[in-house]
């Protein structure tokens, strides 16, 4: 489930409020959004991919919360990790050689 909005990273663009399919976030006038309906989170990771500032973290447990904190996430370099792996961060997504990719075929 969605667990963290980093106040240090978030610029308050409200993209996450717009894109979350299950309407988990709520915009706050003059501030950054809040996780208003955490129980509705379907753990789809879409907010992370769309957040331009890598300010969100979705924990892998879809059935409950884990209580992971912002300093732990920073220390582990987890903010933005999914956006990087789908190639939406700077640098894109560099494909391994076709010979390697062809191992998945057949």
């Amino acid at each position, binding site marked *: 489930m969605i667990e963290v909005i980093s106040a240090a990273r978030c610029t308050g663009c409200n993209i996450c409020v717009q894109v979350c*399919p299950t*309407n988990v976030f709520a915009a706050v006038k003059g501030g950054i959004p809040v996780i208003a309906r955490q129980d509705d989170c379907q753990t789809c*990771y*879409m907010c992370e991919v769309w957040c331009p500032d890598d300010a969100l973290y979705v924990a892998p*447990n879809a059935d409950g919360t884990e209580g992971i904190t912002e300093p732990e996430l920073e220390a582990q370099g987890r903010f933005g990790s*999914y956006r990087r792996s*789908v190639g939406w961060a700077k640098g894109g997504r560099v*494909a391994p050689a076709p010979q390697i990719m062809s*191992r*998945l075929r057949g």
Partner: protein
Amino acid sequence: MTSTADNLQVATRLDADVLVIGGGPAGTWAAITAAAQGAKVILADKGFCGTSGATAPSGTGVWYVPPDPGLRAKAMNSRWDMGGRLADPVWMRRVLDQTYSNVNLLSEWGHPFPQAADGTQIRTSLDGPDYMRLMRKRVKAAGVRILDHSPVLELLRDGSGAVAGAVGLRRQRGDLWQVQAGAVVIATGGCAFLSKALGCNVLTGDGYLMAAELGAELSGMEFSSAYAMAMEHGSVTKTRFYDWAEFTYADGSPIPGAASKGGRTAIARTLSAGKGVFARLNADAETQIAMRHAQPNFFVPLDRSGINPFTDRFPVTLRLEATVRGTGGLRLLDESCATSVPGLYAAGDAATRELICGAFTGGGSHNAAWAMSSGAWAGSGAAQFARGQRGRAAQLYRAGGVGIREGKGARIDAAGLTHAVREIVLPYENTYQRHGARLEASLSTLDGLWASARSADEASRDEALRTREGLAMLATARWMYRSALARTESRGMHKREDFPQADEAQRHHIISGGLDEVWTTPAPVAGPALEVLAA
């Protein structure tokens, strides 16, 4: 009980030739195709067109087969027997053709397909986030107006019974919208009963319910027993890499007969006995690199849980995907994807996919091909129908009933209703491994829930969506089990413990419908019994 739409407290009234409900692959292809034919199109999504639905967070393999007769024949044969020979060769051919041209268009539009060693593009799979972001862009460029966070609550009809629009919620404002339209496309996806399978919690069968309220029929609702594997407590129900898995008990000893394909029953049995099932993937270093690149989402929950799936045994579970990766849905009457309701079209998971994969799952390639093909046809059919409706007299009637109309009873407790439906539908022994006695027992509870919901009073604005979702899941489960009961054999994904064999006399479709009285009736298949499928 007729009721005009005049008294609805609507904050915004719009009109369109075509209203598309749902903004996944099916809805976006429908919208783009209808707009290309000159129709004024509005697309309304419960969530956000571009992230919502099963495809955006998941990504899909696609049934993309070049028009080479040998390859096409092989593709058509691939699920013919597994699908219990319920598919229709004519529809398979059309879908292969339409998918080929749609996917080629995606390439022209700039979708980042990977390259093969010879420099050509590999077009057999689509990354979900890229695909659906691109589709949103194309929908907007086509001049379609998108209403995000705008779930439809009910359809509207005219005096003749033809569909004439819809009413929905503006979820982030708490008020209602209404669109009057010449034709409507239902592209609301399947129903996965809030199981948290990847991207599926917006998929609660709403489209089935609203269409059935106008008298539309369903087909193949017994093919609704799809479960998909995920890391325990994880949501990522991407199953392909489990082909590399060995499945064991907690102590590392193998589970007899367990496999991702062809050995799911052993896994489901072990899980329902309360024993853990553990997986470990056997793949060499290069294959691991390829896997990580091909499906980054598969690894997100594992990496974040500190699990190395190639060295650690990790617990897995099966999450219900029901009709999302099953094949049942609204029945189509012709090649334009028309339902039996004038002006109402259905596409994608909201429609039956028996036409191309029969009784076997449409996951892995067929569903994605179906969504883009049927979406295009439904959009085109709706645009044509709407042309004939321009300027029609505008008395609108509400088609929706239970949960949103004034009633004598108490309001429905949406959370309680949802809980009660899920209690019945989620267990493997009710939905995956079926038995007549259990189906009867489930139905009697579900019918009772419907009977008490019928007379309920209108939900509050805050609870209207949840109430309708609960009712849609309830109605879906009743069509599923009534159809499952009517099919006294095992065929494709429909497995009856009390009838373990296929019965050639039941090589037919099961049509279902009705709300207060759920009914089923068989219908003949189009396909020949033993055609060797040549393209």
